[in-house]
């Protein structure tokens, strides 16, 4: 644990020495000075947590020093405890009115002083934390506003996309776009949950063509979710969260992927055999992104490895074989899904 640092200012060498020894003994780091002339410089250059300031000093007295410090640091930023041998009420009131956090009397009882110092350090710490939490509250409310602002155009996009899907069947770009938009929607949902704000977020069910035909029964849904969860080569956990209302929409996406990527492995293989690396790069990169978006982790991993090798120009035969095997696994899984659905 870091020790708190106390700056002790006292022209009286006996008191200064005793304060230093006793406060060090009680667990603090102490910087002691016998005049306030260097105090401002020390406050800037050292990390001082609290000041113990003697009132009666020649040249500049403690009240003048206190006023100078308070021009730069308020009572929360830097607690100051005045040390005085004058115990009459008017002196104490004057001291507190001048911006001191507290006072202790001379001769100092160091056990009492230590407890008071701890109290003021605690108050300062809690005040800092409160200020920080207020700052966070402001940030949270800003994020909440942005969330709402983003949600409206996003809902429109998803609606328009649903129409496009009906017109252009299952174009891969549309599937990719839809997946990306649902991911954004999911992020907004999670942020809203985190901030505990109520948002009317769209769900795939609102736009799903499958759901517009017939409503899925509960048992059908459970069965389909079970199949999707154990589908070989896939990790569909995230997508199932998005499509939990009607997982048939997810099946449509996976089938669409299979249809539109039926020949992609052959195309990649031919481009590599013809040493057309640019085309190979484009195809592998596209496959990497799309497979990741539909949760085909096995294929995505194989495509990522090949994508890396294409960047370095050192293509391993094993990587091509791994891609072929991954492709086969994914196709078999989607075939199974079609037969079960």
């Amino acid at each position, binding site marked *: 644990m870091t020790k708190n640092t106390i700056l002790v200012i006292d*022209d*009286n*060498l*006996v*008191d200064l*020495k*005793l304060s230093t*020894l*006793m406060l060090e*003994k009680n667990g603090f780091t102490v910087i002691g000075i016998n005049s306030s002339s260097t105090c401002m410089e020390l406050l800037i250059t050292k990390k001082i947590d609290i000041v113990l300031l003697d009132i*009666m000093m*020649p040249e500049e007295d403690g009240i003048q020093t206190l006023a100078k410090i308070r021009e730069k640091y308020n009572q929360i930023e830097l607690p100051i405890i005045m040390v005085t*041998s004058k115990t009459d009420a008017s002196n104490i009131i004057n001291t507190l009115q001048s911006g001191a956090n507290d006072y202790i009397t*001379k*001769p*100092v*009882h*160091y*056990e009492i002083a230590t407890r008071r110092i701890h109290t003021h350090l605690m108050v300062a710490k809690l005040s800092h934390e409160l200020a920080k939490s207020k700052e966070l509250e402001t940030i949270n409310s800003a994020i909440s506003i942005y969330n709402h602002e983003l949600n409206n155009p996003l809902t429109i996009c998803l609606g328009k996309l649903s129409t496009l899907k009906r017109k252009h069947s299952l174009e891969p770009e549309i599937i990719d776009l839809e997946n990306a938009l649902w991911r954004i929607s999911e992020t907004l949902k999670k942020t809203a949950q985190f901030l505990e704000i109520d948002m009317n977020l769209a769900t795939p069910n609102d736009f799903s063509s499958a759901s517009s035909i017939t409503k899925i029964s509960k048992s059908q849904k459970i069965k389909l979710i079970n199949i999707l969860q154990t589908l070989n080569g896939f990790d569909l956990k995230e997508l199932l969260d998005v499509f939990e209302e009607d997982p048939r929409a997810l099946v449509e996406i996976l089938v669409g992927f299979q249809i539109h990527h039926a020949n992609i492995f052959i195309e990649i293989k031919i481009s590599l055999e013809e040493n057309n690396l640019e085309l190979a790069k484009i195809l592998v990169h596209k496959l990497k992104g799309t497979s990741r978006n539909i949760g085909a982790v096995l294929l995505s991993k194989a495509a990522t490895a090949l994508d890396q090798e294409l960047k370095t120009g050192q293509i391993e035969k094993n990587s091509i074989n791994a891609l072929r095997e991954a492709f086969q696994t994914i196709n078999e899984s989607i075939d199974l899904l079609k037969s079960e659905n």
Partner: protein
Amino acid sequence: MENIINYEELLLRCQCSKEIAEEIIAIFIKDADARIIEMRTLLQNKNQKQLEICSHALRGAASTISGERVKNIAWEVENLSHIGDLSVIPDRLNELQFALNQIKEEINSWRKS
């Protein structure tokens, strides 16, 4: 008559550390010697305000080591300076020096105890 040093109180202030108490008394003796010389000069120059501040400082230091006799005399000098009655201060300064010498003598036997 008051104690030259109230050891019980001093040790309580030092949270029972005799080592710290001895270190503080050594600093006090050195500081008090210099202050009494300074007070004589200030008195000669009739610098009433600084004499008050200087005696106040000596009183504070004496309080810290629980040197009751020095503290009481220094307090008297502080009050006399404050009201501007400098006539009896020379006698008080002699008493101060005497009380300080008593501390010096007593502290040696305390160290050995």
